[in-house]
Protein backbone atom coordinates (compact mmCIF):
# COMPACT_ATOMS: atom_id res chain seq x y z
CA UNK A 1 0.00 0.00 0.00
CA UNK A 2 2.72 2.40 1.02
CA UNK A 3 4.57 1.49 -2.13
CA UNK A 4 1.51 2.15 -4.25
CA UNK A 5 1.20 5.58 -2.67
CA UNK A 6 4.86 6.20 -3.36
CA UNK A 7 4.37 5.22 -6.99
CA UNK A 8 1.47 7.65 -7.29
CA UNK A 9 3.35 10.54 -5.70
CA UNK A 10 6.58 9.89 -7.59
CA UNK A 11 4.57 9.48 -10.75
CA UNK A 12 2.77 12.76 -10.21
CA UNK A 13 6.03 14.61 -9.58
CA UNK A 14 7.65 13.08 -12.63
CA UNK A 15 4.54 13.83 -14.69
CA UNK A 16 4.70 17.49 -13.69
CA UNK A 17 8.28 17.64 -14.84
CA UNK A 18 7.48 15.88 -18.11
CA UNK A 19 4.60 18.25 -18.78
CA UNK A 20 6.78 21.30 -18.20
CA UNK A 21 9.48 20.13 -20.62
CA UNK A 22 6.98 18.96 -23.25
CA UNK A 23 4.45 21.78 -23.28
CA UNK A 24 6.59 24.25 -25.22
CA UNK A 25 7.38 21.58 -27.78
CA UNK A 26 3.74 20.74 -28.39
CA UNK A 27 2.80 24.43 -28.56
CA UNK A 28 5.40 25.11 -31.24
CA UNK A 29 4.39 22.04 -33.20
CA UNK A 30 0.70 22.85 -32.94
CA UNK A 31 1.11 26.33 -34.38
CA UNK A 32 4.12 26.09 -36.65
CA UNK A 33 4.21 22.37 -37.53
CA UNK A 34 7.85 22.26 -36.48
CA UNK A 35 9.04 19.40 -34.29
CA UNK A 36 11.70 21.43 -32.59
CA UNK A 37 14.71 19.29 -31.62
CA UNK A 38 16.44 22.49 -30.51
CA UNK A 39 13.96 22.49 -27.61
CA UNK A 40 16.46 20.23 -25.87
CA UNK A 41 19.16 22.86 -26.18
CA UNK A 42 16.82 25.56 -24.88
CA UNK A 43 16.22 23.33 -21.90
CA UNK A 44 19.98 22.99 -21.41
CA UNK A 45 20.50 26.75 -21.84
CA UNK A 46 17.81 27.40 -19.24
CA UNK A 47 19.38 24.94 -16.82
CA UNK A 48 22.88 26.36 -17.26
CA UNK A 49 21.89 30.00 -16.94
CA UNK A 50 19.69 29.28 -13.92
CA UNK A 51 22.48 27.30 -12.27
CA UNK A 52 25.14 29.93 -12.84
CA UNK A 53 22.96 32.98 -12.07
CA UNK A 54 21.40 31.45 -8.94
CA UNK A 55 24.83 30.20 -7.89
CA UNK A 56 26.18 33.73 -8.24
CA UNK A 57 23.20 35.12 -6.32
CA UNK A 58 23.75 32.77 -3.40
CA UNK A 59 27.50 33.25 -3.38
CA UNK A 60 26.99 37.02 -3.07
CA UNK A 61 25.08 36.38 0.14
CA UNK A 62 21.74 37.76 -1.07
CA UNK A 63 18.64 36.24 0.55
CA UNK A 64 18.52 32.63 -0.70
CA UNK A 65 14.75 32.83 -1.23
CA UNK A 66 15.47 35.28 -4.04
CA UNK A 67 17.21 32.52 -5.99
CA UNK A 68 13.83 31.32 -7.22
CA UNK A 69 13.16 34.68 -8.80
CA UNK A 70 16.65 34.65 -10.27
CA UNK A 71 16.02 31.26 -11.84
CA UNK A 72 12.76 32.48 -13.33
CA UNK A 73 14.43 35.58 -14.73
CA UNK A 74 17.20 33.44 -16.21
CA UNK A 75 14.66 31.28 -18.03
CA UNK A 76 12.76 34.26 -19.39
CA UNK A 77 15.98 35.89 -20.56
CA UNK A 78 17.06 32.75 -22.39
CA UNK A 79 13.68 32.52 -24.09
CA UNK A 80 13.66 36.19 -25.01
CA UNK A 81 17.12 36.02 -26.56
CA UNK A 82 17.35 32.56 -28.09
CA UNK A 83 13.75 32.36 -29.34
CA UNK A 84 13.82 35.46 -31.56
CA UNK A 85 17.35 34.73 -32.77
CA UNK A 86 16.43 31.23 -33.94
CA UNK A 87 13.04 32.19 -35.37
CA UNK A 88 13.96 35.46 -37.10
CA UNK A 89 17.49 34.45 -38.00
CA UNK A 90 16.80 31.01 -39.40
CA UNK A 91 13.42 29.34 -39.19
CA UNK A 92 11.45 32.02 -41.03
CA UNK A 93 13.42 31.24 -44.18
CA UNK A 94 12.37 27.62 -43.90
CA UNK A 95 8.57 27.90 -43.63
CA UNK A 96 6.82 25.94 -46.33
CA UNK A 97 9.44 23.21 -46.50
CA UNK A 98 8.65 19.61 -45.62
CA UNK A 99 8.04 18.88 -41.95
CA UNK A 100 10.87 16.40 -41.96
CA UNK A 101 13.28 18.98 -43.42
CA UNK A 102 12.29 21.33 -40.62
CA UNK A 103 13.10 18.58 -38.11
CA UNK A 104 16.56 18.37 -39.65
CA UNK A 105 16.99 22.15 -39.51
CA UNK A 106 16.19 22.19 -35.82
CA UNK A 107 18.51 19.21 -35.37
CA UNK A 108 21.27 21.34 -36.87
CA UNK A 109 20.39 24.14 -34.45
CA UNK A 110 20.51 21.59 -31.65
CA UNK A 111 24.02 20.51 -32.63
CA UNK A 112 25.20 24.11 -32.82
CA UNK A 113 23.72 25.04 -29.44
CA UNK A 114 25.13 21.90 -27.77
CA UNK A 115 28.64 23.12 -28.52
CA UNK A 116 27.70 26.71 -27.77
CA UNK A 117 26.80 25.57 -24.26
CA UNK A 118 30.14 23.77 -23.94
CA UNK A 119 32.02 26.84 -25.14
CA UNK A 120 30.29 29.17 -22.69
CA UNK A 121 30.03 26.97 -19.61
CA UNK A 122 32.76 24.40 -20.19
CA UNK A 123 32.32 20.67 -19.79
CA UNK A 124 32.41 20.45 -15.99
CA UNK A 125 29.09 19.87 -14.20
CA UNK A 126 27.35 22.65 -12.27
CA UNK A 127 25.55 22.02 -9.01
CA UNK A 128 22.98 24.38 -7.56
CA UNK A 129 21.26 22.32 -4.90
CA UNK A 130 20.30 25.05 -2.40
CA UNK A 131 16.89 25.93 -3.87
CA UNK A 132 15.94 22.27 -3.77
CA UNK A 133 16.22 21.92 -0.01
CA UNK A 134 15.35 25.48 0.96
CA UNK A 135 11.60 25.01 1.23
CA UNK A 136 11.72 22.19 3.74
CA UNK A 137 9.89 18.95 3.20
CA UNK A 138 6.60 17.19 3.86
CA UNK A 139 5.83 13.67 5.04
CA UNK A 140 3.33 11.22 3.71
CA UNK A 141 3.27 8.05 5.75
CA UNK A 142 6.93 7.32 6.34
CA UNK A 143 8.02 8.94 3.09
CA UNK A 144 9.64 12.35 3.00
CA UNK A 145 9.42 14.62 0.00
CA UNK A 146 11.12 17.99 -0.45
CA UNK A 147 8.59 20.78 -0.86
CA UNK A 148 10.34 21.77 -4.06
CA UNK A 149 8.34 19.03 -5.73
CA UNK A 150 5.20 21.01 -4.90
CA UNK A 151 6.72 23.96 -6.77
CA UNK A 152 7.19 21.69 -9.76
CA UNK A 153 3.63 20.42 -9.55
CA UNK A 154 2.27 23.94 -9.08
CA UNK A 155 4.27 25.23 -12.03
CA UNK A 156 2.95 22.46 -14.29
CA UNK A 157 -0.67 23.14 -13.32
CA UNK A 158 -0.16 26.90 -13.61
CA UNK A 159 1.39 26.67 -17.09
CA UNK A 160 -1.29 24.30 -18.30
CA UNK A 161 -4.17 26.42 -16.99
CA UNK A 162 -2.76 29.71 -18.24
CA UNK A 163 -2.09 28.31 -21.71
CA UNK A 164 -5.56 26.77 -21.92
CA UNK A 165 -7.09 30.05 -20.77
CA UNK A 166 -5.13 32.15 -23.24
CA UNK A 167 -5.98 29.82 -26.11
CA UNK A 168 -9.70 29.62 -25.52
CA UNK A 169 -10.67 32.85 -23.79
CA UNK A 170 -8.54 35.66 -25.16
CA UNK A 171 -8.59 37.44 -28.49
CA UNK A 172 -4.94 36.60 -29.14
CA UNK A 173 -5.58 32.95 -28.37
CA UNK A 174 -8.50 32.76 -30.74
CA UNK A 175 -6.38 34.28 -33.48
CA UNK A 176 -3.79 31.62 -32.72
CA UNK A 177 -6.38 28.88 -33.08
CA UNK A 178 -7.42 30.37 -36.41
CA UNK A 179 -3.80 30.23 -37.60
CA UNK A 180 -3.54 26.62 -36.46
CA UNK A 181 -6.70 25.75 -38.33
CA UNK A 182 -5.84 27.42 -41.62
CA UNK A 183 -2.72 29.48 -41.97
CA UNK A 184 -3.43 30.96 -45.38
CA UNK A 185 -7.05 31.82 -44.73
CA UNK A 186 -6.29 33.51 -41.43
CA UNK A 187 -3.55 35.46 -43.18
CA UNK A 188 -6.09 36.57 -45.78
CA UNK A 189 -8.40 37.70 -42.98
CA UNK A 190 -5.76 40.08 -41.73
CA UNK A 191 -3.99 38.12 -39.02
CA UNK A 192 -0.29 38.79 -39.02
CA UNK A 193 0.83 35.17 -39.29
CA UNK A 194 4.51 36.03 -39.13
CA UNK A 195 3.99 37.76 -35.81
CA UNK A 196 1.93 34.88 -34.44
CA UNK A 197 4.78 32.50 -35.35
CA UNK A 198 7.32 34.80 -33.79
CA UNK A 199 5.45 35.08 -30.52
CA UNK A 200 4.65 31.37 -30.40
CA UNK A 201 8.24 30.37 -30.91
CA UNK A 202 9.48 32.82 -28.30
CA UNK A 203 6.95 31.62 -25.75
CA UNK A 204 7.79 28.01 -26.58
CA UNK A 205 11.50 28.72 -26.17
CA UNK A 206 10.80 30.38 -22.84
CA UNK A 207 8.86 27.33 -21.67
CA UNK A 208 11.75 25.09 -22.69
CA UNK A 209 14.22 27.24 -20.79
CA UNK A 210 11.88 27.35 -17.81
CA UNK A 211 11.82 23.56 -17.80
CA UNK A 212 15.60 23.59 -17.61
CA UNK A 213 15.69 26.25 -14.92
CA UNK A 214 13.22 24.39 -12.73
CA UNK A 215 15.16 21.16 -13.18
CA UNK A 216 18.58 22.65 -12.50
CA UNK A 217 18.41 22.31 -8.67
CA UNK A 218 17.53 18.62 -8.92
CA UNK A 219 20.31 17.42 -11.22
CA UNK A 220 23.94 18.02 -11.99
CA UNK A 221 23.89 20.36 -14.96
CA UNK A 222 26.29 18.90 -17.51
CA UNK A 223 26.67 18.38 -21.26
CA UNK A 224 24.20 15.89 -22.69
CA UNK A 225 21.18 16.84 -20.57
CA UNK A 226 19.55 18.41 -23.62
CA UNK A 227 19.83 15.25 -25.70
CA UNK A 228 18.51 13.18 -22.82
CA UNK A 229 15.52 15.41 -22.23
CA UNK A 230 14.42 16.09 -25.77
CA UNK A 231 13.69 12.43 -26.51
CA UNK A 232 11.56 12.24 -23.36
CA UNK A 233 9.70 15.35 -24.45
CA UNK A 234 9.25 13.79 -27.90
CA UNK A 235 7.78 10.68 -26.34
CA UNK A 236 5.28 12.72 -24.31
CA UNK A 237 4.28 14.94 -27.21
CA UNK A 238 3.93 12.11 -29.69
CA UNK A 239 1.91 9.99 -27.25
CA UNK A 240 -0.44 12.89 -26.59
CA UNK A 241 -0.88 13.72 -30.24
CA UNK A 242 1.38 16.33 -31.76
CA UNK A 243 0.23 19.85 -30.99
CA UNK A 244 -2.41 18.92 -28.43
CA UNK A 245 -2.28 20.58 -25.02
CA UNK A 246 -4.63 18.19 -23.17
CA UNK A 247 -2.89 15.36 -24.98
CA UNK A 248 0.48 16.42 -23.58
CA UNK A 249 -1.00 16.62 -20.07
CA UNK A 250 -2.55 13.18 -20.27
CA UNK A 251 0.56 11.67 -21.85
CA UNK A 252 2.77 13.19 -19.16
CA UNK A 253 0.54 11.66 -16.52
CA UNK A 254 0.55 8.27 -18.22
CA UNK A 255 4.29 8.16 -18.79
CA UNK A 256 5.03 9.55 -15.33
CA UNK A 257 2.97 6.92 -13.51
CA UNK A 258 4.24 4.07 -15.68
CA UNK A 259 7.82 5.06 -15.15
CA UNK A 260 7.36 5.49 -11.41
CA UNK A 261 5.80 2.03 -11.28
CA UNK A 262 8.69 0.62 -13.28
CA UNK A 263 11.25 2.24 -10.99
CA UNK A 264 9.55 0.87 -7.90
CA UNK A 265 8.74 -2.63 -9.08
CA UNK A 266 11.16 -3.43 -11.94
CA UNK A 267 14.00 -0.90 -11.81
CA UNK A 268 15.80 -2.47 -14.75
CA UNK A 269 12.90 -1.39 -17.00
CA UNK A 270 13.19 2.32 -16.12
CA UNK A 271 14.02 3.96 -19.47
CA UNK A 272 12.62 1.06 -21.44
CA UNK A 273 9.12 1.57 -19.99
CA UNK A 274 8.76 5.11 -21.34
CA UNK A 275 9.47 4.17 -24.93
CA UNK A 276 7.43 1.05 -24.60
CA UNK A 277 4.42 3.22 -23.71
CA UNK A 278 5.22 5.38 -26.72
CA UNK A 279 5.44 2.42 -29.07
CA UNK A 280 2.25 0.83 -27.72
CA UNK A 281 0.25 4.06 -27.97
CA UNK A 282 1.48 4.74 -31.49
CA UNK A 283 0.59 1.21 -32.52
CA UNK A 284 -2.95 1.55 -31.14
CA UNK A 285 -3.48 5.14 -32.20
CA UNK A 286 -1.02 5.97 -34.98
CA UNK A 287 -1.20 9.73 -34.42
CA UNK A 288 -1.31 9.80 -30.65
CA UNK A 289 -4.14 10.03 -28.11
CA UNK A 290 -5.56 13.42 -29.11
CA UNK A 291 -5.22 13.90 -32.82
CA UNK A 292 -7.40 15.25 -35.58
CA UNK A 293 -8.20 13.25 -38.67
CA UNK A 294 -6.57 14.48 -41.82
CA UNK A 295 -7.66 14.13 -45.41
CA UNK A 296 -5.26 12.46 -47.80
CA UNK A 297 -4.09 14.86 -50.47
CA UNK A 298 -3.60 13.79 -54.03
Amino acid at each position, binding site marked *: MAQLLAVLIDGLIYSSWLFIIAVGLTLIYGVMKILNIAHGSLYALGAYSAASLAGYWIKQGYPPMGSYAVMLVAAILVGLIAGPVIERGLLRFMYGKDEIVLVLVTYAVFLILEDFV*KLVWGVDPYFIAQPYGLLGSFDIGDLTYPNYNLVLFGAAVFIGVVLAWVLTKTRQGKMLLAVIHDREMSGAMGINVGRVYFITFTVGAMLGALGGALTAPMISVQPGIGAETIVLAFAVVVIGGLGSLPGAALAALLVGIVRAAAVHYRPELDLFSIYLVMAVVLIMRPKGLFSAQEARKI
Partner: protein
Amino acid sequence: MNRDPTLPILVAVSVILLAAGPFLPRWAMFLINVSLCYGIVVLGMMLLMRTGVVSFGHGLYYCLGAYAAGTLDQVCKISDMAVMLVAAVIVTALASAALGLLLRKYRDIFFAMLSLAFSMILYGLLVKTSSLGSSDGFNIAATKIAGFTVAGTSVERYVRYALTVVCAFAAGAFMYRYLNSHMGRLAEAIRDNELRVEYMGASVRNVIHVNYMISAVLAGVGGALAAIAVGHIDPEMAYWTTSGEFVFVGILSGTSSILAPFLGAFIFETIRSFAYEYSPNTWQMALGITMLVVIMFLPGGLWSLFTRKRKAA
Protein backbone atom coordinates in the same frame (compact mmCIF):
# COMPACT_ATOMS: atom_id res chain seq x y z
CA MET B 1 22.79 7.14 -74.78
CA ASN B 2 24.81 8.27 -71.80
CA ARG B 3 26.76 5.50 -70.20
CA ASP B 4 26.47 5.49 -66.40
CA PRO B 5 29.99 5.40 -64.93
CA THR B 6 28.81 4.37 -61.44
CA LEU B 7 29.61 0.68 -61.62
CA PRO B 8 33.08 1.03 -63.19
CA ILE B 9 33.97 3.63 -60.58
CA LEU B 10 32.78 1.32 -57.81
CA VAL B 11 34.87 -1.56 -59.15
CA ALA B 12 37.93 0.62 -59.69
CA VAL B 13 37.82 2.19 -56.23
CA SER B 14 37.33 -1.20 -54.57
CA VAL B 15 40.28 -2.74 -56.44
CA ILE B 16 42.49 0.23 -55.65
CA LEU B 17 41.54 0.10 -51.96
CA LEU B 18 42.23 -3.63 -51.80
CA ALA B 19 45.56 -3.30 -53.55
CA ALA B 20 46.68 -0.24 -51.61
CA GLY B 21 45.70 -1.72 -48.25
CA PRO B 22 49.04 -3.28 -47.26
CA PHE B 23 50.91 -0.04 -48.02
CA LEU B 24 48.61 2.28 -46.09
CA PRO B 25 49.67 3.63 -42.71
CA ARG B 26 47.66 2.28 -39.81
CA TRP B 27 45.61 5.40 -39.23
CA ALA B 28 44.59 5.71 -42.88
CA MET B 29 43.59 2.08 -43.02
CA PHE B 30 41.46 2.50 -39.92
CA LEU B 31 39.92 5.70 -41.22
CA ILE B 32 38.94 4.10 -44.53
CA ASN B 33 37.69 1.01 -42.75
CA VAL B 34 35.45 2.95 -40.40
CA SER B 35 34.13 5.29 -43.06
CA LEU B 36 33.24 2.37 -45.31
CA CYS B 37 31.28 0.83 -42.42
CA TYR B 38 29.51 4.14 -42.02
CA GLY B 39 28.98 4.36 -45.76
CA ILE B 40 27.20 1.00 -45.80
CA VAL B 41 24.77 2.24 -43.15
CA VAL B 42 24.20 5.51 -44.96
CA LEU B 43 23.59 3.60 -48.18
CA GLY B 44 20.55 2.14 -46.45
CA MET B 45 19.51 5.58 -45.21
CA MET B 46 19.75 6.78 -48.78
CA LEU B 47 17.32 4.10 -49.92
CA LEU B 48 14.84 5.13 -47.23
CA MET B 49 15.22 8.79 -48.09
CA ARG B 50 14.58 8.02 -51.74
CA THR B 51 11.38 6.34 -50.59
CA GLY B 52 10.43 9.54 -48.79
CA VAL B 53 10.71 8.34 -45.20
CA VAL B 54 13.40 9.32 -42.71
CA SER B 55 14.26 6.98 -39.88
CA PHE B 56 15.53 8.60 -36.70
CA GLY B 57 16.17 5.15 -35.28
CA HIS B 58 18.57 3.31 -37.52
CA GLY B 59 20.98 3.18 -34.63
CA LEU B 60 18.73 0.29 -33.59
CA TYR B 61 20.03 -1.93 -36.39
CA TYR B 62 23.54 -0.54 -36.24
CA CYS B 63 23.62 -1.53 -32.59
CA LEU B 64 21.79 -4.81 -33.13
CA GLY B 65 24.27 -5.88 -35.80
CA ALA B 66 27.19 -4.97 -33.57
CA TYR B 67 25.72 -6.77 -30.57
CA ALA B 68 24.90 -9.82 -32.67
CA ALA B 69 28.57 -10.00 -33.58
CA GLY B 70 29.69 -9.17 -30.06
CA THR B 71 27.43 -11.65 -28.31
CA LEU B 72 28.75 -14.42 -30.55
CA ASP B 73 32.24 -13.68 -29.32
CA GLN B 74 31.31 -12.97 -25.71
CA VAL B 75 28.74 -15.66 -25.00
CA CYS B 76 29.17 -18.37 -27.65
CA LYS B 77 32.95 -17.96 -27.96
CA ILE B 78 32.72 -17.85 -31.75
CA SER B 79 35.14 -15.28 -33.09
CA ASP B 80 34.79 -15.89 -36.79
CA MET B 81 34.15 -12.68 -38.72
CA ALA B 82 32.12 -14.41 -41.43
CA VAL B 83 29.82 -16.03 -38.89
CA MET B 84 29.46 -12.68 -37.12
CA LEU B 85 28.37 -10.99 -40.33
CA VAL B 86 25.86 -13.71 -41.11
CA ALA B 87 24.48 -13.44 -37.59
CA ALA B 88 24.15 -9.67 -37.95
CA VAL B 89 22.28 -10.10 -41.22
CA ILE B 90 19.88 -12.67 -39.80
CA VAL B 91 19.16 -10.75 -36.60
CA THR B 92 18.56 -7.41 -38.31
CA ALA B 93 16.49 -8.98 -41.09
CA LEU B 94 14.20 -10.68 -38.57
CA ALA B 95 13.90 -7.60 -36.38
CA SER B 96 13.18 -5.28 -39.29
CA ALA B 97 10.68 -7.72 -40.81
CA ALA B 98 8.74 -7.63 -37.54
CA LEU B 99 9.01 -3.89 -36.87
CA GLY B 100 8.42 -3.11 -40.52
CA LEU B 101 4.94 -4.58 -40.21
CA LEU B 102 4.15 -1.65 -37.92
CA LEU B 103 6.31 1.04 -39.44
CA ARG B 104 5.06 0.56 -43.00
CA LYS B 105 1.80 2.27 -42.03
CA TYR B 106 3.52 5.44 -40.86
CA ARG B 107 4.95 8.40 -42.72
CA ASP B 108 6.87 11.58 -42.06
CA ILE B 109 7.33 12.57 -38.46
CA PHE B 110 5.49 9.53 -37.14
CA PHE B 111 7.78 7.17 -38.99
CA ALA B 112 10.75 9.05 -37.60
CA MET B 113 9.39 9.10 -34.05
CA LEU B 114 8.24 5.49 -33.92
CA SER B 115 11.58 4.26 -35.21
CA LEU B 116 13.26 6.50 -32.65
CA ALA B 117 11.15 4.91 -29.92
CA PHE B 118 12.21 1.43 -30.99
CA SER B 119 15.88 2.31 -30.97
CA MET B 120 15.56 3.93 -27.55
CA ILE B 121 13.85 0.78 -26.26
CA LEU B 122 16.92 -1.22 -27.27
CA TYR B 123 19.15 1.44 -25.70
CA GLY B 124 17.15 1.30 -22.46
CA LEU B 125 17.40 -2.48 -22.39
CA LEU B 126 21.12 -2.66 -23.10
CA VAL B 127 22.01 -0.02 -20.54
CA LYS B 128 20.40 -2.18 -17.88
CA THR B 129 21.76 -5.53 -19.06
CA SER B 130 24.74 -6.09 -16.82
CA SER B 131 25.70 -9.39 -18.49
CA LEU B 132 26.44 -7.40 -21.66
CA GLY B 133 28.39 -4.69 -19.86
CA SER B 134 25.55 -2.19 -19.28
CA SER B 135 26.45 1.28 -20.49
CA ASP B 136 30.15 0.42 -20.81
CA GLY B 137 29.61 -2.25 -23.45
CA PHE B 138 32.38 -4.77 -23.96
CA ASN B 139 35.36 -5.57 -26.14
CA ILE B 140 35.12 -8.04 -28.96
CA ALA B 141 37.85 -9.97 -30.67
CA ALA B 142 37.36 -11.31 -34.18
CA THR B 143 40.35 -13.52 -34.84
CA LYS B 144 39.14 -15.91 -37.51
CA ILE B 145 37.60 -15.69 -40.91
CA ALA B 146 35.73 -18.62 -42.50
CA GLY B 147 37.63 -21.05 -40.28
CA PHE B 148 41.15 -19.62 -40.78
CA THR B 149 42.80 -18.05 -37.81
CA VAL B 150 44.27 -14.67 -38.68
CA ALA B 151 45.36 -13.47 -35.26
CA GLY B 152 48.63 -11.64 -35.61
CA THR B 153 48.60 -7.90 -35.83
CA SER B 154 49.17 -6.68 -39.36
CA VAL B 155 47.55 -9.61 -41.17
CA GLU B 156 44.53 -9.39 -38.92
CA ARG B 157 44.17 -5.67 -39.61
CA TYR B 158 44.37 -6.17 -43.35
CA VAL B 159 41.83 -8.99 -43.30
CA ARG B 160 39.36 -6.81 -41.38
CA TYR B 161 39.97 -3.97 -43.79
CA ALA B 162 39.61 -6.18 -46.86
CA LEU B 163 36.42 -7.70 -45.49
CA THR B 164 34.94 -4.23 -45.11
CA VAL B 165 35.98 -3.21 -48.61
CA VAL B 166 34.44 -6.35 -50.07
CA CYS B 167 31.23 -5.86 -48.10
CA ALA B 168 31.01 -2.21 -49.13
CA PHE B 169 31.51 -3.22 -52.75
CA ALA B 170 28.85 -5.89 -52.50
CA ALA B 171 26.43 -3.51 -50.80
CA GLY B 172 27.06 -0.83 -53.41
CA ALA B 173 26.69 -3.20 -56.34
CA PHE B 174 23.53 -4.68 -54.88
CA MET B 175 22.04 -1.24 -54.30
CA TYR B 176 22.91 -0.22 -57.85
CA ARG B 177 21.10 -3.23 -59.26
CA TYR B 178 18.19 -2.79 -56.88
CA LEU B 179 17.62 0.87 -57.65
CA ASN B 180 17.40 0.03 -61.35
CA SER B 181 14.93 -2.78 -60.73
CA HIS B 182 11.16 -2.49 -60.74
CA MET B 183 10.94 -2.25 -56.93
CA GLY B 184 13.82 0.16 -56.73
CA ARG B 185 12.32 2.56 -59.21
CA LEU B 186 9.10 2.68 -57.26
CA ALA B 187 10.92 4.28 -54.34
CA GLU B 188 11.17 7.76 -55.79
CA ALA B 189 7.68 7.52 -57.23
CA ILE B 190 6.41 6.94 -53.68
CA ARG B 191 8.28 9.95 -52.43
CA ASP B 192 6.74 12.10 -55.14
CA ASN B 193 3.18 10.88 -54.83
CA GLU B 194 2.19 7.86 -52.86
CA LEU B 195 -1.47 7.84 -53.78
CA ARG B 196 -0.80 7.76 -57.51
CA VAL B 197 1.55 4.82 -57.08
CA GLU B 198 -1.29 2.98 -55.39
CA TYR B 199 -3.71 3.87 -58.18
CA MET B 200 -1.27 2.36 -60.61
CA GLY B 201 -1.49 -0.92 -58.77
CA ALA B 202 1.68 -1.10 -56.68
CA SER B 203 1.60 -1.71 -52.95
CA VAL B 204 3.25 1.27 -51.29
CA ARG B 205 3.42 -0.49 -47.95
CA ASN B 206 5.19 -3.49 -49.40
CA VAL B 207 7.80 -1.34 -51.07
CA ILE B 208 8.37 0.64 -47.88
CA HIS B 209 8.61 -2.57 -45.88
CA VAL B 210 11.14 -4.15 -48.24
CA ASN B 211 13.20 -0.99 -48.44
CA TYR B 212 13.11 -0.69 -44.67
CA MET B 213 14.40 -4.24 -44.33
CA ILE B 214 17.17 -3.68 -46.85
CA SER B 215 18.30 -0.54 -45.08
CA ALA B 216 18.11 -2.31 -41.72
CA VAL B 217 20.28 -5.19 -42.90
CA LEU B 218 22.80 -2.75 -44.34
CA ALA B 219 22.86 -0.91 -41.00
CA GLY B 220 23.38 -4.25 -39.24
CA VAL B 221 26.26 -5.20 -41.53
CA GLY B 222 27.79 -1.75 -41.04
CA GLY B 223 27.41 -2.12 -37.29
CA ALA B 224 28.99 -5.58 -37.21
CA LEU B 225 31.89 -4.45 -39.38
CA ALA B 226 32.39 -1.39 -37.21
CA ALA B 227 32.37 -3.58 -34.13
CA ILE B 228 35.00 -5.86 -35.69
CA ALA B 229 37.10 -2.90 -36.78
CA VAL B 230 36.95 -0.93 -33.54
CA GLY B 231 36.93 -3.95 -31.25
CA HIS B 232 34.51 -2.37 -28.78
CA ILE B 233 30.75 -1.88 -28.66
CA ASP B 234 28.43 -0.03 -26.29
CA PRO B 235 24.73 0.90 -26.12
CA GLU B 236 25.53 4.40 -27.35
CA MET B 237 25.25 2.87 -30.83
CA ALA B 238 21.47 2.73 -30.36
CA TYR B 239 21.18 6.22 -28.83
CA TRP B 240 19.19 8.65 -30.92
CA THR B 241 22.17 10.91 -31.62
CA THR B 242 23.85 8.04 -33.49
CA SER B 243 20.77 7.73 -35.68
CA GLY B 244 20.80 11.48 -36.08
CA GLU B 245 24.34 11.27 -37.43
CA PHE B 246 23.24 8.75 -40.04
CA VAL B 247 20.49 11.09 -41.15
CA PHE B 248 23.01 13.91 -41.20
CA VAL B 249 25.44 12.05 -43.44
CA GLY B 250 22.55 11.00 -45.65
CA ILE B 251 21.53 14.63 -46.16
CA LEU B 252 25.14 15.67 -46.63
CA SER B 253 25.73 13.03 -49.29
CA GLY B 254 22.54 13.30 -51.28
CA THR B 255 20.52 10.47 -52.72
CA SER B 256 21.27 10.63 -56.42
CA SER B 257 24.07 8.05 -56.62
CA ILE B 258 25.12 4.98 -54.67
CA LEU B 259 28.62 6.42 -54.50
CA ALA B 260 27.41 9.50 -52.63
CA PRO B 261 26.97 7.82 -49.22
CA PHE B 262 30.53 6.48 -49.29
CA LEU B 263 31.96 9.85 -50.22
CA GLY B 264 29.81 11.55 -47.59
CA ALA B 265 30.80 9.04 -44.92
CA PHE B 266 34.49 9.39 -45.77
CA ILE B 267 34.33 13.19 -45.53
CA PHE B 268 32.35 12.92 -42.30
CA GLU B 269 34.76 10.48 -40.66
CA THR B 270 37.80 12.43 -41.79
CA ILE B 271 36.44 15.67 -40.36
CA ARG B 272 35.42 13.85 -37.20
CA SER B 273 38.80 12.31 -36.52
CA PHE B 274 40.63 15.58 -37.08
CA ALA B 275 38.06 17.61 -35.15
CA TYR B 276 38.32 15.23 -32.18
CA GLU B 277 42.04 15.80 -32.27
CA TYR B 278 42.11 19.57 -32.53
CA SER B 279 38.84 20.99 -31.30
CA PRO B 280 36.59 18.47 -29.58
CA ASN B 281 34.20 21.11 -28.27
CA THR B 282 33.26 22.79 -31.51
CA TRP B 283 32.94 19.85 -33.80
CA GLN B 284 29.18 19.44 -33.40
CA MET B 285 28.81 23.12 -34.10
CA ALA B 286 30.69 22.67 -37.38
CA LEU B 287 28.38 19.77 -38.20
CA GLY B 288 25.29 21.82 -37.50
CA ILE B 289 26.45 24.72 -39.63
CA THR B 290 27.40 22.38 -42.48
CA MET B 291 23.99 20.78 -42.28
CA LEU B 292 22.21 24.14 -42.48
CA VAL B 293 24.34 25.18 -45.45
CA VAL B 294 23.62 21.91 -47.25
CA ILE B 295 19.87 22.11 -46.57
CA MET B 296 19.71 25.71 -47.74
CA PHE B 297 22.05 25.76 -50.72
CA LEU B 298 22.54 22.14 -51.77
CA PRO B 299 19.22 20.38 -51.23
CA GLY B 300 20.50 17.51 -53.40
CA GLY B 301 23.53 16.96 -51.15
CA LEU B 302 27.22 17.12 -51.99
CA TRP B 303 26.75 14.72 -54.87
CA SER B 304 24.61 17.28 -56.73
CA LEU B 305 27.81 19.29 -57.22
CA PHE B 306 29.01 16.59 -59.63
CA THR B 307 25.76 16.00 -61.45
CA ARG B 308 25.12 19.69 -61.90
CA LYS B 309 28.48 20.14 -63.57
CA ARG B 310 27.89 17.24 -65.88
CA LYS B 311 24.54 18.61 -66.99
CA ALA B 312 26.07 21.98 -67.77
CA ALA B 313 28.78 20.46 -69.92
